[in-house]
């Protein structure tokens, strides 16, 4: 059996030749790409707005943004799985209408066929291309070898650990020798250590030129991951998603997370991502009835009070750097953003330039007993979260002091997608219950004023 590197040697040679030729022509070129999805009542939810993007040979490009900002949608447009609503997306100069040749994808959920062995999974893409069986076996074994899966050829995916499964995902994508490798949050379903091993393995192979690919586009919401792996980072803004900034990373591989230059870049991206508050539907003037359309991300009140306590206590004393806080509390960048935003919405903290600062009310909250905390929380909910005020007002006004959830869901869906409305409703219920503003019955899906017995 030929060794892995030998099997790929010819591919590498080919790559280098092609690299020169194709350096003028971009691999992927997108201009003014928009995409919207239908939501209820004939309206559309605009997910991507006027995205321009170019990917050339020889680079690892990162797409960094918060969850729900449309990164996966953009990736799927490039993969030919979703069509843009307007604008044009081209692969090697040709408009993408179906999955283009020479693009392979690695999935967050691995997307392995559980009834096929590792070898069969890896061979699948080659079978689809009609590669003859001897060649197929040779290439599959070489890819398995390269990605460190030796000895697992006949194992079924369910017998493997998460990290090994994602290696199969990589081998399956690499074996077709794609020009562009698309990766949708490939490490986020893995535990911290496994993810790090896989990242460094991949970067090493890339640097050594042993990967039979020309470019990589990877989606992530993890800032450090982007800085660790990418040559160029596109920062995505949300609602609707567009490219807000482009950052070149010139540090040589392998990069060191503790390197001051590395830290500085991570901090500056954090700052950039918090400085630009998302243009939400809600105007912040708080006129009753207008801010109802705000999407409330579900964050448990327990976590919120925990975070306030942590912030109030030393060493932070009411002021913390988000990346530091995130790593100490083991949160993803994305999660810490949501938490910070919720605190800011409730006026318990202030978010700016990657920092989280407790407000006066926040400090007070930290020092109160449970019951008093609930009262303060309730007060802030009514004052600063319009939809909570709405629910409370409707319940007060109705003679029965009850209202079906559908009453509010319908109103929410005027402003947001069904999923968002669901999440917002869930948040309303959980915050409202904690603050003892109202009761909610899951069975009948009704809000009421009576205290649950």
């Amino acid at each position, binding site marked *: 059996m030929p060794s892995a590197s030998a099997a790929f040697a010819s591919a590498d040679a080919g790559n280098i030749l092609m690299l020169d030729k194709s350096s003028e022509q971009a691999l992927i070129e997108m201009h003014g790409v928009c995409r919207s999805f239908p939501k209820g009542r004939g309206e559309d939810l605009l997910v991507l707005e006027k995205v321009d993007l170019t990917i050339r040979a020889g680079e690892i490009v990162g797409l960094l943004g918060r969850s729900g900002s449309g990164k996966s949608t953009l990736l*799927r447009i490039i*993969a*030919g*799985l*979703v*069509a843009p*609503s307007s604008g044009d997306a081209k692969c090697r100069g040709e408009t993408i*209408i*179906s*999955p283009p*040749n020479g*693009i*392979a*994808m690695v*999935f*967050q*959920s*691995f*997307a392995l*066929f*559980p*009834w*096929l*062995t590792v*070898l*069969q999974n890896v061979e*699948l*893409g080659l*079978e*689809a*291309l*009609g590669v003859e069986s001897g060649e197929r076996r040779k290439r599959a074994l070489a890819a398995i070898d390269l990605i460190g899966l030796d000895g697992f*050829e*006949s194992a*079924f*995916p*369910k*017998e493997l650990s998460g990290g090994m499964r994602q290696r199969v995902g990589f081998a*399956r994508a690499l074996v*077709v020798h794609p020009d562009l490798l698309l990766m949708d949050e490939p490490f986020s379903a893995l535990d911290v250590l496994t993810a790090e091993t896989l990242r460094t393995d991949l970067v090493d192979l890339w640097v050594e030129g042993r990967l039979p690919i020309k470019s990589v586009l990877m989606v992530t919401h993890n800032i450090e991951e982007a800085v660790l792996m990418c040559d160029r980072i596109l920062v995505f803004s949300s609602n609707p998603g567009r490219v807000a900034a482009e950052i070149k990373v010139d540090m040589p591989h392998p990069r060191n997370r503790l390197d001051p230059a590395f830290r500085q870049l991570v901090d500056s991206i954090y700052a950039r991502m918090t400085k630009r508050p998302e243009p939400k539907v809600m105007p912040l003037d708080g006129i009753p009835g207008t801010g109802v359309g705000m999407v409330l991300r579900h964050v448990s009140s327990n976590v919120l009070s925990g975070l306030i306590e942590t912030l109030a206590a030393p060493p932070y004393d009411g002021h913390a750097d988000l990346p530091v806080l995130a790593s100490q509390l083991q949160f993803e960048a994305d999660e810490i953003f949501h938490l910070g935003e919720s605190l800011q919405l409730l006026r318990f903290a202030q978010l700016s330039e990657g920092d989280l600062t407790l407000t006066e009310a926040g400090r007070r909250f930290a020092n109160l007993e449970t019951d008093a905390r609930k009262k303060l929380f309730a007060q802030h909910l009514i004052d600063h979260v319009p939809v909570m005020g709405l629910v409370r007002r409707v319940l007060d006004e109705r003679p029965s002091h009850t209202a079906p959830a559908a009453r509010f869901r319908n109103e929410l869906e005027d402003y947001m997608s069904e999923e968002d409305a669901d999440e917002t409703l869930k948040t309303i219920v959980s915050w409202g219950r904690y603050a003892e503003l109202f009761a909610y019955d899951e*069975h009948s899906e009704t809000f009421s004023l009576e205290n649950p017995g």
Partner: protein
Amino acid sequence: MTLQDIRTAPLGQVLRPNVWDVVAIILVIGAMVLIVYGGEQTTEPLSELQASPVSLDPANLPLYALRTTMRMLLAIVCSTIFTFVYAAVAAKSRRAEIVLIPLLDILQSVPILGFLTFTVVFFMNLFPGRVLGAELACVFAIFTSQAWNMTFSMYQSIRNVPKDLEEASQSFHLSPWQRFWRLDVPFAMPGLIWNAMMSMSGGWFFVVASEAITVGNTTVTLPGIGSYVALAIENRNLAAIGFALLTMFLVIIAYDQLLFRPIVAWADKFRFEQTASGNVPESWMLDLFRRTRALRALSYPFSAINRAFSNLHVQLPAALRWQADRGAPSRVFDAIWFVVIGASTGYAAWRAYLYLSTNLSPSDVATAFVSGLVTLARVAVLIALATLLWVPIGVWIGLRPKLAERIQPLAQFLAAFPANLAFPVFVVFIVHFHLNANIWLSPLMILGTQWYILFNVIAGASAFPSDLREAASSFHLRGWRWWIKVVLPGIFPYYVTGAITASGGSWNASIVAEVASWGDTHLTAKGLGSYIASATEAGDYPRVVLGIAIMCVLVTLFNRLVWRPLYAFGERRLRLG
């Protein structure tokens, strides 16, 4: 699985047979001989049936059992082929789906035995004077009892293929044909096999009921266990009925051990779960085959063919091909399609009305409808009684894992056992004690179907999370509170599944259960089943059609108004985990 073995095992060793090969080869050859033998019989002319009529000699029983089993096998093959085509078309084409799925839903509630009248005539005309026509009619009857739920299961699986796997197969350029065989079919496999098993269980009932059919003045008796029993009834031979029961018992066990257990064990790899589970189904038969060397080597070409087959370049019609999701489909075609559907529906309704109105009067409809209500009452009462009996027993068994493990196969076996073989025993009893047929024939309807309630409840109780049980006991929940608050909600979805199957089966069984005879003694219970049965015997087609139509409507309404809401409620509120 096999690929790795090819690579590691030296070639010479692969081909040298071992002891297990001998056993397995005998089994395989035996099966082939039996199939060929059974097949030869079906091409005989019809007069052959008269020349060598069914006899009550128990020595003939193995042969009859073979013929009956062959019909079952043929039917399950047909059902599988039908399932693949129908489910695939319904799942892939939105326009076809609009028609095919409601159609399937209605077909599911058509009383198959009432249908027999038409199919026998149809198939006999197709092969005049040949046994084949009658055989096909019988196979068709079994097919109609098996196909629908298998098709539903496959359709639902294809619709629920995980999105990431779907995207993976698209982005790796699998052709629609490859995708179907590599993704859709394997993903649908566990559900399909489970439903095929359920179908087989139901099928025995119908094969037995449809082997001896009288339509007007034609009587066709196909050699088989069903006609053996029919003859035994005519001759009032209780011993022969005992032999038939014993034979059936053995046949079902053999079927389960030699066919289904190996398939279930083999299909375990298709279960869609990401972690290896400790509870792997086993089959000595499959182990036997896995231990044979030469036979396994024989299977390699098969897996190669299988692979080549799924890699064929097959162009599917454009309608079935996947396209990137690109907004709304053409409205014009939709409009045309709806007009076509509307027109054909209207035409069918008009023809049905013409046919029935020239032959029937409104009072006929009223009579049939009242009979329908009587049968409805019977089904409702019987299901309620069976519930009262089997739910507590099922829970009791299900909460004792050791016991459940032993009882569960028994309950499944009882569900598979064709209850109509046991009818004569009841009839003898009723005749002997001069009981009221209207009341005492009723239990026959649920005799074979009550087991679905039992084994679903056992399954539900076994799946009941032990932490919830512990929590309940730590809160000192006991007595009726424990039942109402803890157990019943937990098993509810399972119970409803069982009860739906049981009630559907009971409707069907009413056609054979509301009329029964023992020699010259005929017992009849008033109801829609006996209405259809007597119309069939008299060759009165309009009344058969009317009876079937009313049964269809009642079953559908009962499902929509009672079972569906209950099921939805159970799924929404009470599903654990």
